[in-house]
């Protein structure tokens, strides 16, 4: 029962093959000389070169990076506050509604979030564009940050905060000097998570964007609808590479944090 048996090995091998083979094939065929996706025509990086010529993709990528950077930064600030409110403010009036608004966006179908946010912008006559996409991204990203912070705070020793207060530090300074540095790894992984969520989002961006604010996923989506091309594979490979880099660095930060927790 306790042993790591053949069943476990089989489950892991099959499971991870299922998870990774599609991505590996996608990356592989981005280096395919041939335009045909199923025929290997030799190694080539020409699709990456073509990508560089594609102004539409470059514009979309730039919009996406701007939106992701701003939205993840604001979402991290708001989400960190929300995570602290959830764990350190006890019971206040409206807490259930608050936690509902934190958890619901994480499971709520994106079409609903996208539609509702858009309809509000239209009703309030807000011009759609980079700004509205950013607002929408902040809103759902901050919930993920809040949950990351919340789970970090569950292993945070409150007496550390009390010790700082006890030694004459004001509540605000205590947050800046003590709490924030200690939970910083969680804040950083919250930021990275928001950044990739924003980078990946198709549905909500499709609803809330306007002319001139086509994001990269929207661009990819419109290309995908026209068929599978090595160019899409190439841009996907770049995105996958960036995210992989981010996850690995986040996990290294996280591991260091964990080691500190264990020793303290």
């Amino acid at each position: 029962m306790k042993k790591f048996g053949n069943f476990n090995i089989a489950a892991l091998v099959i499971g991870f093959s299922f998870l990774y083979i599609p991505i590996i094939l996608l990356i592989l065929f981005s280096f395919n000389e041939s335009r045909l996706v199923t025929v290997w025509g030799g190694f080539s990086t020409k699709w990456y070169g073509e990508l560089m010529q594609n102004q539409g993709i470059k514009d979309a990528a730039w919009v996406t990076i701007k939106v992701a950077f701003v939205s993840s930064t604001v979402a991290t600030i708001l989400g960190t506050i929300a995570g602290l409110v959830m764990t350190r403010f006890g019971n206040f009036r409206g807490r259930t509604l608050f936690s509902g608004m934190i958890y619901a966006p994480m499971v709520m179908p994106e079409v609903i979030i996208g539609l509702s946010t858009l309809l509000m912008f239209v009703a309030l006559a807000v011009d759609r564009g980079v700004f509205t996409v950013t607002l929408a991204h902040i809103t759902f990203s901050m919930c993920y940050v809040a949950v990351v912070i919340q789970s970090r705070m569950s292993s945070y020793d409150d007496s550390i905060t009390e010790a700082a207060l006890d030694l004459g530090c004001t509540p605000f300074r205590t947050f800046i000097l003590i709490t924030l540095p200690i939970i910083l790894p969680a804040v950083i992984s919250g930021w990275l998570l928001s950044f990739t969520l924003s980078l990946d989002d198709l549905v909500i961006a499709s609803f809330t964007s306007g002319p001139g604010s086509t994001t990269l996923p929207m661009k990819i989506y419109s290309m995908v609808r026209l068929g599978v091309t090595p160019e899409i594979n190439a841009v996907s490979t770049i995105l996958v590479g960036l995210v992989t880099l981010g996850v690995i660095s986040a996990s290294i930060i996280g591991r260091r944090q964990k080691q500190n927790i264990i020793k303290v």
Partner: protein
Amino acid sequence: MKNKQKIPGPFKSLLSGRFAVIAIPYVWLLSFFLLPFIFVLKISLAEPIMAIPPYTALLNWGDSWLPSIQASLDSYLFLFSDSLYIKAYLSSLKIAIISTILTLIIGYSIAYSVARAPSRWRGILLMLVILPFWTSFLIRVYAWIGILKTEGLLNLALMTIGLIDKPLIIMNTDLAVYIGIVYSYLPFMILPLYANLEKMDMSLLEAAADLGCRPFKTFWTVTVPLSLPGILAGCFLVFIPVMGEFVIPDLLGGSETLMIGKVLWTEFFYNRDWPVASAVAIILLALLVVPIMLYQRSQEKAIS
């Protein structure tokens, strides 16, 4: 709370600071998450017109002092008169349930195996689970098109090894949708399950074995019941968003694959019928309110 009037000076400033800190994220979520639903509800009661925005105003400020309310239930009546919508809801429900069960079975085997793996491997295995979770949904779904389509890699591979003579038709069928959903949502199932299974006290299993329980029975009578919170969280994380899934049925499904998320998208972007799209959203939301609240409860319990 009875001693409210006795809050001393310095504490009062702390309390007002506390109020501001709560208010910042609270007001944000109220205005950008909750408030929009009021507008959805409002527009679902309007009528479509050819204009910008393409719906009638709910309140009409004519010459009178009081606005006249022009609410119309037409959109809702339309949803129930055309069997397409009811079929789409039912079909979404069916697809969500079946794919949740499939994801649970596969996800449990993986999560369980990761949790039982030697501890030096666990970190790397867990990262392998998380990595796809962070990778773009769209890209992961796209990756399957090249594999599943008639002249795709799967058929090529199967025909090369001589398992089949004619290509299988998987692309643009419900099967492709199931594959896409299970693939995309697997990490959402594995992570809560792993978090739960990893914490499980191994001595419980040893105690069961010590008391004469056979391994298979121990699994069903000890491991599974104890991992129930993880199972619930994982199932909610898959079932609820899949109910409104758009990208997967759109890219992998065929013309006969009916899912309500796709219907909403079509009504909104292609038919430009905003009131009907809103009504579709409101009914979907009504169907999902209870599962979402159950999910919230299970998460709060897990944290505290």
